[in-house]
């Protein structure tokens, strides 16, 4: 028995020795070799430096996708403020909110999908941050309408308690989703079946013909209504689409978002910009 354990022990130690050989190699001779390569590499960089300006222009995709993940920690002494760094951004963000893993819309349209109307897009994206796409872009038939809206966790996709009361406005880790009635049952609009269908389409997109593609897209977007709900559909005192109290808004918050200040501003906007938004070929149709 003792012999056996010793054998196991020796084999393990052998592995450890090999591991250490590798490490020692890495910190010694490999280091010299690495330095040599680095030097030749930097000489190459120097050689091509004239072309660098050209080169830096074409890498926008990389710049956006890869470099936007940069993070900073500000050491303020009494606290450490960690946040994402956006190049050239002056104000601090101060917290992180993870990506929306549930929504199948953002997989194609991105999480800042509104870009058609210059003056409005930021507003619409601001809402898209905590309001699911379907809340505005799906108008249910009379028989399907339930008037039920619930919050789902961005990370897990599960229905959660309303985050409105405990958080600063808009800084929620969850999004609002409408519910519809299917065969008398209450089902969330972004049902698992719909997600599955969209996922499958994305997986097979490359092998489909143009006709098949457009048919699949039609099916995916079938639930989307031509004209979305507009700002004043919710920002009003009388009959807002969203049941504010039921989704966790306090009296003050309801008053605030339906105040004359907000409603008045929306009116201004509608006057100036809304006409262009409702023209054909704008963001809603793309959606």
């Amino acid at each position: 028995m003792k012999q056996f354990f010793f054998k196991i022990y020796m084999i393990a130690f052998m592995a450890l020795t090999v591991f250490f050989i590798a490490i020692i190699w890495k910190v010694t001779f490999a280091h010299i070799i690495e330095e040599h390569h680095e030097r030749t590499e930097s000489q190459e960089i120097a050689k091509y430096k004239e072309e660098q300006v050209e080169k830096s222009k074409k890498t926008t995709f990389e710049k956006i996708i890869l470099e936007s993940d940069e993070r900073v920690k500000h050491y303020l002494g009494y606290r450490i403020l960690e946040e994402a760094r956006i190049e050239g951004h002056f104000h601090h963000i101060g917290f992180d909110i993870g990506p929306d893993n549930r929504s199948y819309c953002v997989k194609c349209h991105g999480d800042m999908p509104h870009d058609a109307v210059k003056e409005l897009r930021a507003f619409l994206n601001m809402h898209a941050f905590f309001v699911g796409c379907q809340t505005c872009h799906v108008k249910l038939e009379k028989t399907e309408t339930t008037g039920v809206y619930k919050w789902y966790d961005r990370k897990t996709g599960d229905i959660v308690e309303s985050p409105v009361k405990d958080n600063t406005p808009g800084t929620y880790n969850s999004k609002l989703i409408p519910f519809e009635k299917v065969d008398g049952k209450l089902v969330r609009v972004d049902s698992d079946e719909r997600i599955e269908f969209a996922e499958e389409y994305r997986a097979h997109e490359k092998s489909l013909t143009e006709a098949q593609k457009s048919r699949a897209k039609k099916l995916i977007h079938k639930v989307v209504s031509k004209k979305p709900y507009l700002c004043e559909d919710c920002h009003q005192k009388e009959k807002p689409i969203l049941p504010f109290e039921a989704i966790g808004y306090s009296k003050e918050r309801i008053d605030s978002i339906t105040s004359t200040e907000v409603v008045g501003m929306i009116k201004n906007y509608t006057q100036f910009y809304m006409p262009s938004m409702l023209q054909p070929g704008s963001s809603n149709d793309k959606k």
Partner: protein
Amino acid sequence: MKALPRASRLIALFCFSVFLLISFTFTPSYAADVGNCLLCHKYPGISRVDEEGKLRLFYVNESIFSNSVHAKVKCEGCHTDIKKIPHDVAKKVDCLVECHIIEPSSEKKFSHKDVKEFLGKSVHGPIDKEGKEKKYIEDYPTCKDCHDNPLYRPLSFFKKVRPGISEASLGRCRVCHKKEEFIYRFYNHVTTRLHKSRNPLNIAEVCARCHDNPEIVARHEMSTKAVFSYGETFHGKAARFLDERVPDCLDCHISKGESVHQMLPKEDPASSIHADNKGKICTNIDCHPSASPKLAKYSVHAEFNLKQSPAQYFFTVFFIILTGGTLLPLMFIILLDIIRRFFPNATIGRRK
């Protein structure tokens, strides 16, 4: 407010990461937001992707903003083109604009114009002495390349237990001053200025964005990835472990008492790193006052690089070969020894 005692700060750094939602208890009721801009801009989702594919975020975190040096400046003070709500697409902020703040000593309107002047004359200025544009002008920094909104880093001298604002000190302020907002801001302003407004590691990170970028280093024919080589010195390593007492880039590259925007190339006789002045850097009264000027001959930015510092390169290579040459054979002996013990009698030759 998170109180972080010094010794555990490192541990805290790791426990304390992703989800830190606003935890300031000191959020004075004072609001610079006269125009009610936060009505919309308090929503973090207020953002878009611009024509060049860049993310534009218009969110302002109020509690962090009110703990920044600009807290008293109204939004319109910098975003001067915004006069009405709803507003059109806003222009880029010009940091040199005269804002509504009155500078108390001169009683003139405040502006960052001097900084631009300093920067223009410095090694980072985009125009050379003959008035011509320097090569690769787009590499030269502008305000926001180094600065985001500077945050207060208040000190506390009352007890050494935790950094941050000392209640006891605030109490002493209250003896004479009545306005809470004034007390809070004054305390923050003064104590932030008493030490580095950014921790050495944060400063190094800012410089590293350009000075460790291999393309920029190659384009401007710099001899070193400066922050990398600084990071290999004791000062750099200590900065990495969040020591506040060690010198960062600015401490050596700026003559003491001058604006950090006045950084000069080493050829300039007025530069702190000019051969004639270099000795004074280390022997500074706050650093190594008893040292001789020879200490400054220590090459901070020496890299393991044959071209840049050959003597150090070969010295290192000697030790590397010594290490590898000693350890690797010994390691193989251990390995063979273990294997040999499995087969104690497996001799090829005859037994003695």
